[in-house]
């Protein structure tokens, strides 16, 4: 996403080819865009035709002094003028609305693609970069489709036809005009090179800025707690200043092309006036011809001037398209199988077979984070997973629902490799409660029934009951209370209980709970455990645990150590046999501390 990478990519495709990639989205709009161009072209031709009428008028009635003959010419000019306006209206009507449809389609696709891409992608991509793509870049593409491309094509064609008119009025003047304007084309070409690099950098920097904004908002509690608003501002300001630098550089490039776009026509006008006078003196051109020549050249001025702006817009759009497809081209590594099988009679037997996993960015010198996990959880069994911080517990739970895919070995659900199931089905069988609650700003009801939106009130009440989350009935609007963003208007323990209720409400065959009781006080924890036991009697469960109290929920405990499950057994078995287990879970010293307190007392 750096500017260097952008230039590197840039050489791969020409601007036209790069932009052409949006064709599949624009296809439906193409006929209308084509018609729009046609209308615009007719409009332009009409505009070019007006000077011809003037020429006839000047050389005819005006020189002859016949007043009556002026009327039809004026009427003709008026008619042409109305026609031109009508054509513009038609162009607008044709192209404007389809542009918004293309934008909407691209936006939906982009969003769906992002939802589909694996978590690993989201780990890697700063959110602001995604946001700036879905908002600014797509808006740019729409505007380009709605007038950028239309005007670019039409104006270039108008210029060409206009030149033909100029040539027809007087070929020498016409040639003079064309020769004089060549520097424009050369500069335009150079401009593309210079401009598109800066354009890309500016868009990337905007994305980075958006990321900073996003983090400064989401991390506001930390920034406030440490009084680091000023510090964040410094970073933000320096990024914003970089962006400003880039924007000014961009403006310099634009100023350069403006200079030529204005200078060249003006110089050409002056020279043409001189040449025209010379020709006129020799009788090679009439006064009407001169009038028509300049009137035509004036009609051409705006198309010529607009080229600079249209080109920069086109290059911006190209960058936007590149950035859009950078995401769309991402290969999704976690997909549904071609022919998904189905677990017909789900029992919830979850088996890890020689499972290996390493994160993408893990250096080769490191062993796999999960280095051959073998673990079988029988239907209805509750297995606790215990291990040190960073040992890979969360990672292991994420594998079971294919938030990540194993890099070796396989995971079986009731004998079926989970990669042979559709993700939809897999995630119906397995429900999770994450270690951070991740709630959405929706009603309590919607949050709890996230995994089973069609469930009734009973199921909802039961789940809330099990998670000891009855506090929701006391909220201002009860179950319909909208909980604030990410649930941050609830207390930590309330959030966690809702997340637990959410997993339970899904009524899956397998429950995966990542440290589900960490934010609960001892009493509530005991209540939740008692209630959970009933559910767990019939459900297979994998529960990540840091505390002996949570371990108590489980029938058996698996100890994760150096990427392997080194011991499986009941809590007391492991306490007796595994030194590492004692180290991880035993609170021996705590008890000593307590006894010390007691002694003091």
């Amino acid at each position, binding site marked *: 996403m750096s500017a260097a990478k952008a230039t590197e990519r840039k050489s791969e495709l020409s601007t036209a080819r790069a932009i052409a990639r949006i064709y599949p989205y624009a296809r439906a709009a193409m006929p209308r865009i084509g018609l729009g161009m046609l209308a615009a072209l007719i409009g332009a031709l009409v505009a070019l035709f007006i000077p011809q009428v*003037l020429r006839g*008028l000047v050389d005819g009635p*005006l020189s002859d002094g016949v007043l009556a003959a*002026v009327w039809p*010419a004026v009427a003709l000019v008026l008619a*042409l003028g*109305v026609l031109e*306006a*009508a054509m*513009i*209206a038609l162009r*607008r009507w044709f192209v404007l609305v389809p542009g918004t449809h293309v*934008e909407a389609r691209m936006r*939906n696709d982009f*969003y769906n693609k992002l*939802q589909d891409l694996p978590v690993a992608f989201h780990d890697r991509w700063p*959110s602001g970069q995604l*946001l700036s793509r879905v*908002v*600014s870049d797509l808006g740019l593409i*729409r505007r380009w489709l709605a*007038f950028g491309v239309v005007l670019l094509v039409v104006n270039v064609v108008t210029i060409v036809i206009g030149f033909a008119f100029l040539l027809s009025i007087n070929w020498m003047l016409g040639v003079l005009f064309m020769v004089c304007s060549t520097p424009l084309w050369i500069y335009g070409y150079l401009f593309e090179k210079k401009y598109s690099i800066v354009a890309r950098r500016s868009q990337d920097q905007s994305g980075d800025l958006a990321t900073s904004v996003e983090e*400064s908002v989401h991390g*506001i*509690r930390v920034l406030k707690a*440490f009084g*680091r608003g000023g510090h964040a501002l410094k970073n*933000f300001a320096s990024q914003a200043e970089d962006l400003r630098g880039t924007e*000014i550089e961009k*403006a310099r490039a634009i100023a*350069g092309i403006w200079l030529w776009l*204005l200078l060249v026509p003006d*110089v050409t*006008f002056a020279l043409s006036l001189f040449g025209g*006078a010379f020709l*006129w003196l020799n009788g090679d051109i009439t006064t009407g011809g001169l009038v028509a020549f300049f*009137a035509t050249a*004036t*009609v051409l001025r705006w198309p010529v001037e607009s080229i600079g702006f249209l080109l920069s817009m086109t290059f911006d759009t190209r960058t936007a398209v590149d950035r859009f497809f950078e995401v769309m081209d991402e290969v999704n590594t976690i997909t549904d199988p071609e022919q998904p099988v189905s677990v017909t009679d789900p029992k919830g037997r979850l088996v890890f077979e020689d499972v290996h996993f390493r994160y993408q960015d893990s250096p080769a010198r490191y062993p796999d984070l999960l280095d051959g996990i073998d673990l079988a959880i029988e239907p209805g069994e509750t297995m606790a997973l215990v291990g*040190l911080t960073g040992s890979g517990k969360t990672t292991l739970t994420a594998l079971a629902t294919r938030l990540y895919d194993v890099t070796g070995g396989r995971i079986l659900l009731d004998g079926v490799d989970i990669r042979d199931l559709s993700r939809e089905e897999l995630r119906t069988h397995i*429900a*999770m409660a994450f270690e951070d609650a991740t709630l959405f700003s929706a009603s309590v009801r919607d949050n709890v029934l*996230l*995994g089973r939106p069609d469930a009734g009130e009973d199921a909802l009440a039961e789940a809330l009951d099990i998670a000891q989350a009855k506090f929701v009935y006391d909220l*201002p609007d009860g179950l319909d209370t909208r909980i*604030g*963003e990410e649930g941050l*208007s609830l*207390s*930590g323990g309330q959030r966690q209980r809702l997340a637990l209720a959410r997993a339970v409400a899904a009524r899956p065959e397998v429950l995966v709970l990542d*440290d589900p009781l960490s934010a609960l*006080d*001892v*009493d509530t924890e*005991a209540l939740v455990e008692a209630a959970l036991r009933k559910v767990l009697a019939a459900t297979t469960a994998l529960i990540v645990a840091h505390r002996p109290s949570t371990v108590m929920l489980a029938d058996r405990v698996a100890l994760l150590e150096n990427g392997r499950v080194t011991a499986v057994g009941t809590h007391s078995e492991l306490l007796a046999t595994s030194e590492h287990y004692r180290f*991880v879970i035993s*609170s021996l010293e705590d008890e000593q*501390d307590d006894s010390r*307190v*007691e002694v003091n007392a």
Partner: protein
Amino acid sequence: MSMTGVDGEDRNDLTKEESRRIRQRSFALLRSLVKPVQKKVVLTAIVVVLSTALQVSGPALIGLGITVGLPALTDQNWMPLGIVVATYLVAAVLGSVSIAWYTILTAQLSQAMLLDLRKRVFVQTQRLSLEFHEKYTSGRIIARQTSDLDSIKELLGNGVNQLVQGGLYMLFIAVAMFIVDWVSGLVLLASLIPLAFLTRWFADRSEKLFRETRVASAKLIVHFVETMTGIRAVKAFRKEKRNEKEFAEHVEHYRDANSKVIQVFGLYDPGLMLIGNVTLGFVLLFGGMRVVNGELGIGLLLSALLYTRQFYGPMQEMAMFYNAYQAAAAALEKISGVLEERPTVPDPTGPIDLRQARGHVTFDGVTFAYNKDRVVLPSFDLDIPAGQTIALVGSTGAGKSTLAKLISRFYDPTEGAVLLDGVDLRKLHPKDLRRAIVMVTQEAYLFSGTVADNIALGKPDASREEIERAAKAVGAHEFIESLPNGYETDVNKRGGRVSAGQRQLLSFARAFIADPQVLILDEATASLDIPSERLVQDGLQTLLADRTAVIIAHRLSTVAIADRVLVMEHGRIVEDGAPADLIGGTGRFAQLHAAWRDSLV
């Protein structure tokens, strides 16, 4: 109803009075942005006046060349024509150079204003209290700082440029027109009447529609941000399909709002063209008649015609940027609303100096409620002497975090006051306050960036040694060293690169390095394994020797390092005493502690 700040942002039924107030507000904001760059504005204005005047001289010079230069040529006198052409060339060079200069100047100007605005919104966002953030949601505040600022950038970058230049251009043309031929000048002036009506109609229609697009786009951003933030839960609970539908609705809404704007514009633009072309016809009519009567030179008629065409040319461009103007105006309204918000936790006007706090915290008759109808802390008194370590326990939702948030002044009490060393927190300078009191929140938020940066957030000027010392003190050094790039490893957005426990250790190290006099730990060890927790506690014991600390924890092991235990239920302190006394007693804590002890085995 008086409306301030962000009230009414989503409303579409603002009264005239309210709209006017909002407009005034954004106008005031604009003025305040221009103020610091006034000098440059003046320079820019001079340059643009100059360059426009030079450009406008073109058609007059051509007309002059034909009217005066040509007849002179028949006498073999090349002088008049030579002078005209030479003047034209000089004007062309000066005109285009000044335009280029103007382009760069406006870029510098607009970027300076934009940077100013960005910083202001950023600062304001940081300044606003959590209460605001919770109500307003992050998506919306992000939208303000991204897409809305984009619209303003669009306007400042291209729009103003075009509008000013176009406006001047029209003015000068009108003047030139009167000089060249006053009758044509009158015709042009008359055409302004329908123009004014058309513009009025457009402005009225589009203003409301534009506001609608801003609302729609903000909703879209909110949905987008929330999905990406909660992508794991979205996947695990199969919310993709439902999201797809919801997002598509937002997209459609935005698309329709946009289409409506564009359609209105699609009528305005051709309308302009029509007026322009009809005017052209009338200029031709009146001019032609007078040419026939010998009252007007043909060359001057040509000038008048060229001017008419050029008068309406920029109008269209300006109309295009009127779009940008409207979008920016709508955005500015929203931004000015955010800027107008007064933080409910305001900085003091005459802060009391407290360089070196001792750390004596007092709650004096504090009442607190998040929402008026539900009091969380009813009438609360508490005195924490300097240097005391307090363990705060109690069931979930009791109000422990709330208490912590009051000490760190995330919120202000509804009644009563929280005092530090006898000074109301509301009277402390934020710098002093944040230096003295630091809280580790229940949610361990990390920013994308390196591990070192994240720790250094607690003390921005910390050296590498200090950072490592802090990491060692909380037992994080080891795992950091094992990351691919050690302290320089990027933790990714929200610290997704490291495990939950590791995140907590890093937030802990962050507080450690900040070295405050009062330290508040809200469940700061909840996700840690027991060995790490033990290490942290050892670190704490040394750290807290001469500091005030409030430690909130459900794992009662913390009690070991506390001087005093507070038990909280339903917003009240129900027990208060030395740990040993309470454990030995028969109260709530004794019971909690016994339950906890049982849970250990």
